């Protein structure tokens, strides 16, 4: 890792780290709020029962199902948090691009301004999938910041599709296609571009969206 890349981790990386943690804690609070209200409602039903007032027993089933669903949602959130936390284990490492995109989509999904996103990357045993020797943390930051910027530019009902495309050389291009298309004339923000350059990646604005080309990849 160069000293410039190290500086980026400290400057932009900390901001990214804080943003991810804030959105995850917000998600967990929402989950706890639902479990708390459901537990409170169960207590309300208990008090009704003690007073000899009847209630529909299916309410109990609904409550237990709701609690189970929220616990699963909480586990999934913590799984993403754990994967994200491990992105700083190594300054640079081989990462599978589709894995990094999947995690970034999940992490940005906790943001209140996130848009519905479809990930069309190959996930298993696909010849299109690539790995790259890169800073896992900065790469996460790059994809996260890119998605955040796109979400902010998109209409609340708009949707985003991400896909991977092979380049003729050893690179791979991530295609971001907002539907409907958005005005990206000011993209990328200089700070996002700085991270991209440090990772030897480059943005190109197209008629339909945005492309991010990453060089020196290899088949996964």
């Amino acid at each position: 890792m160069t000293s410039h890349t190290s500086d980026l981790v400290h400057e932009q990386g900390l901001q990214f780290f804080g943003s991810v943690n804030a959105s995850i804690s917000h998600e967990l609070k929402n989950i706890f709020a639902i479990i708390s209200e459901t537990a409170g409602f169960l207590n309300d039903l208990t008090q009704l029962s003690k007073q000899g007032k009847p209630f529909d027993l299916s309410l109990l089933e609904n409550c237990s199902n709701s609690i189970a669903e929220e616990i699963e949602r909480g586990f999934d959130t913590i799984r993403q948090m754990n994967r994200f936390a491990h992105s700083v284990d190594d300054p640079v490492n081989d990462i599978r691009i589709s894995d990094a995109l999947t995690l970034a989509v999940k992490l940005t999904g906790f943001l209140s301004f996130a848009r519905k996103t479809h990930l069309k990357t190959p996930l298993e045993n696909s010849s299109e999938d690539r790995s790259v020797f890169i800073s896992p943390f900065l790469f996460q930051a790059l994809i996260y910041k890119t998605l955040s910027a796109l979400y902010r530019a998109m209409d609340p009902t708009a949707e985003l599709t991400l896909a991977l495309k092979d380049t003729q050389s050893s690179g791979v291009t991530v295609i971001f296609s907002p539907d409907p298309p958005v005005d990206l004339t000011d993209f990328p923000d200089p700070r996002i571009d700085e991270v991209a350059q440090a990772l030897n990646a480059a943005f190109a604005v197209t008629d339909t969206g945005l492309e991010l080309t990453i060089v020196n990849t290899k088949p996964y």
Partner: protein
Amino acid sequence: MKIILVDDETKFINMLARRLSLRGLEADVAYSGDQALEKAAQTRYDIAVLDMKMPGMSGFTLKRKLLDQLPDIKFIFVTGHGTLDQNGVPDQFDDIFLAKPLNIDTLIDTILQRLHPDQ
């Protein structure tokens, strides 16, 4: 007393409405700012309990739009954000913030205090 609860966490807001109902307070629910504005066009609400961060329209934006329709409406903001350091205390705009998870008795006390500050 007309109450509207607005939050994109549908299970949370439905359960809250149910628990308020068991305590004699009927509340309408809306899952987005736009839905809340549609309901406010039909019903003269006295108080709105708003989530601060919602997709599409934040609680603060919704407050401004609701005030255009209902100038006398009161507000309580509910938030899952960790920076809340004034739980239940009005800020300089006289808004009251409550942190998630909520305590139902605190919420009811706050609703009553907002609507009847002299009692």
